[in-house]
């Protein structure tokens, strides 16, 4: 490349390393690639190998075929954790996303004042540490003398045994997740709604479509890609749920709120059964892939 020597001489250099255009991209991606190989590619491969190994009597790791995967299929604790996680998933995700959509539609209303205030307030829970939130909920939902049971008693209800009754323990964890994530999804929906041009609704109104019809016939179809994304995102997040189960309920009474993530933590870091923990992780990977593919298929077909 032609360089004017006069310009090069007068320009202070600040010691920037001079790279040719050919070499530069390799230097630029080098830090990312090195970190990626060491902390992503290596663990993914090693974990896969580990999932086919078991520890023999001498404490050495030996290949054992599909033994770990057979153990996984017969592991009632794993299926209990998976059942708990799926239960939280099928109850919580629809509630959370419907609520987020309702709030987004209300916040998008042209009659609403203080939109910025409401948006900020609903988004607030999403910025907090789950560790902190879990402990706050733990105190608010104490069986004896907890604030929520106190409010319920004013209404002539309860007291509810949040920590000892498996059902209410599951309700508690669902409430905590809904509180944390509804506003986040609402902000995503709101930005999608604001991208829909208003004249579409005007012509629909002229044609005599009611607000409700407009919502189901216009808004929902236009929002489909965003709804699909939030559904998959929430599903993946819920399947990996750990913090709430570990901190808020400690797995709950007779493991009623033990999630797959919390079970994996128990196997790996409390029992130090690393090979089997890797098998659980790969089992989770398969489940997440299958569910994502199903959701993509269903989401596409309804177009």
């Amino acid at each position, binding site marked *: 490349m032609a360089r004017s020597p006069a310009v090069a001489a007068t*320009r202070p250099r600040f010691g*920037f390393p*001079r*790279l040719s255009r050919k070499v530069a*991209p*390799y230097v*630029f991606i080098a*830090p*990312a*690639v090195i*970190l*990626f190989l060491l*902390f992503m*590619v*290596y*663990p993914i491969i090693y974990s896969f190998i*580990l999932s086919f190994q078991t520890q023999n009597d001498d404490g050495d790791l030996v290949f054992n075929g599909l033994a770990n995967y057979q153990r996984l299929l017969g592991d009632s604790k794993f299926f209990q954790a998976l059942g708990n996680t799926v239960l939280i998933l099928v109850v919580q995700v629809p509630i959370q996303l419907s609520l987020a959509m309702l709030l987004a539609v209300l916040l998008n209303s042209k*009659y*609403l004042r203080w939109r910025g205030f*409401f948006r*900020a*307030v609903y*988004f*607030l829970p*999403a*910025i*907090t*540490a*789950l*560790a*902190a*939130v879990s*402990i*706050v909920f*733990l*105190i*608010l939902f104490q069986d004896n003398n*907890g*604030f929520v049971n*106190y409010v319920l008693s004013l209404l002539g209800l309860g007291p509810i045994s949040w920590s000892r009754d498996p059902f209410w323990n599951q309700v508690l964890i669902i409430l905590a997740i809904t*509180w944390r994530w509804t506003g*986040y999804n609402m*902000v*995503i929906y709101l930005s999608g709604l604001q991208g829909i041009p208003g004249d579409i609704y005007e012509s629909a109104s002229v044609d005599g479509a*009611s*607000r*409700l019809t407009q919502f189901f016939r216009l808004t929902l179809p236009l929002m489909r890609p965003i709804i699909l994304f*939030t559904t998959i995102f929430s599903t993946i997040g819920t399947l*990996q749920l750990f913090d709430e189960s570990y*901190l808020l309920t400690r797995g709950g009474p007779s493991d009623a709120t033990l999630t797959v*993530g919390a079970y*994996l933590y128990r196997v*790996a870091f409390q029992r130090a059964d690393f090979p089997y*923990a*890797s098998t*659980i*992780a*790969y089992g989770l*990977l398969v489940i*997440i892939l299958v569910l994502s593919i199903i959701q993509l298929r269903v989401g596409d077909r309804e177009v």
Partner: protein
Amino acid sequence: MINQPKVSSALPASSIKTVVGENGLWARTGRVLMYLFLGIGAFVSLFPFYFMFIAATHTSSEVLRTPPNLLPGSYLFDNLTKLIKDVGFDQAIYNSILIAVIFTVASMTVSSLAGFAFAKYKFKGSNFVFGAFLLTLMIPAPVTYVPLFKLMTPDGNPFGLNWLGTLQAVILPGLASPFGIFLMRQSMRALPDELLDAGRIDGTGEFEMFWKIVLPVMRPTLAALAIFTFMTQWNSFFWPLVAQVKTIPTAISALRGSSIIDYGGIMTGTSLSVLPILIIFLLMQREFISGALAGSVKG
């Protein structure tokens, strides 16, 4: 939202207007219901914060009193002193700040450099490497937990690292974020090539160009990504727990069921966790929201 009722056409036009018009009975009732609903939602969103900050100024017995005490108390300083003197909470605060700041700066550097290379250079293997990064976006993090943990312990570790309990054990594994690289690449693709070519003709080096031309233009994206990264790292619980590093979230977790610190003290700890992010949020709400939205288009 109110579903407008069908009104018989026999009614005079003026009376229809007072019932269904913009300021009619139905519309007004609808608006009252809307504000009521949004108000209740806002209360539910905010109350745990209020309760937490108030509880931080009380002792356990006040926190769990019936009816609850919802006015500020005078134990904040006592709670804070106990946290620092008895469980060394200042160490957790120090670690959390150091980790979040170093992680954010380093991760921005790694992501923007790689994003720049993928967006603006043609080089051998570029598609393959970028594709590999994207592919790992689909792999759930738990798959990497066991090998990463073993990588940090001297036992059975191919690289001879002994990092449990150290800051680099928390900082290094997540630095090369596929999401960050993807986001930087997407926004840098919009940069006009002429801008870079003009720089090259002026004799500007490739790295200098990245630093002086590209990064300043990318400031809004960088700000959103930096805030998102800082928040995620500040709030992160699982990995510091496994890597046995004392941060604010792991310290709070250790306080649960502790006999030394009561609920008032724990709420002081959680307040210290939430307060910095809350302040940044109030100051930089726009960047927070666009960080969240950037996360939503990563698919």
